[in-house]
């Protein structure tokens, strides 16, 4: 590819040029939530391993998952899980070539954002009752 002219072609617009929009922010958040869920998932695996090992080890893991840092990570993970799930449904809809026009895409974006917050609050309230 040595003969490809890289000198005077126009550059494609980059992230810094675009005004942040609901569609782009919700897309980026899908990637961030999906990958950040690794932390919560590893904590769950660790908690299960501790429960399968001994009462002392379980007490340690359980105390870390229920301290304020653990609470923060788990509540954040619940939001990330609901957000990523709703954003995933949006992707499954888009893959059928439905809802790709900008007004519908914007509505779906708000549905994902607002829906994830409502589901997180509902989950936290239900968990406190159980």
């Amino acid at each position, binding site marked *: 590819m040595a003969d490809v002219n890289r000198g005077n072609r126009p550059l494609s617009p980059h992230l810094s040029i675009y005004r942040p929009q609901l569609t782009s922010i919700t897309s980026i958040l899908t990637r961030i939530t999906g990958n950040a869920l690794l932390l919560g998932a590893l904590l769950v695996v660790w908690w299960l391993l501790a429960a399968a090992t001994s009462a002392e080890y379980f007490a340690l893991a359980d105390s870390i998952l229920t301290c304020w840092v653990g609470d923060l990570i788990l509540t954040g993970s619940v939001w990330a*899980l609901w957000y990523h799930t709703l954003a995933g449904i949006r992707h499954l809809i888009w893959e059928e070539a439905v809802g790709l026009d900008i007004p519908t895409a914007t509505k779906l974006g708000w549905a994902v954002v607002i829906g994830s917050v409502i589901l997180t609050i509902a989950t936290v309230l239900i968990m406190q009752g159980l």
Partner: protein
Amino acid sequence: MRYLTDYKRAKGMGSAKSGVHHFWAMKVSSMALLVLVPLFVFTFGPMIGKPYAQVQAYFSHPFPAIVTALTLIVGFKHFKDGVQVLIEDYVHGYAQKFWIIAMTCLSYAAAATGVFAVAKLALQ
């Protein structure tokens, strides 16, 4: 190279011819997780912070044990495929290969550890 026409240089370069498999794998695991994630949140979630004996008794039941194990298997498979695209987008060269291998190993190791733990709790 200058004796090659533009068409000749472009021919065959268009597609990796294997992308559909990755897309389909993500679609299958995402559909499965659509069912598993709500089940997991409300069967596994309530056990955090519960007494040890109650946790042991709970996971000896088939439903919570199977939902937890299945969510970890499918979830980490979905994560492995998803994080691969993240790495491919932002990391290049040898570092890209290193991180894809490392995250693949981590995903399988975490899934295996979780399934072992659930199995031990369920069957002891």
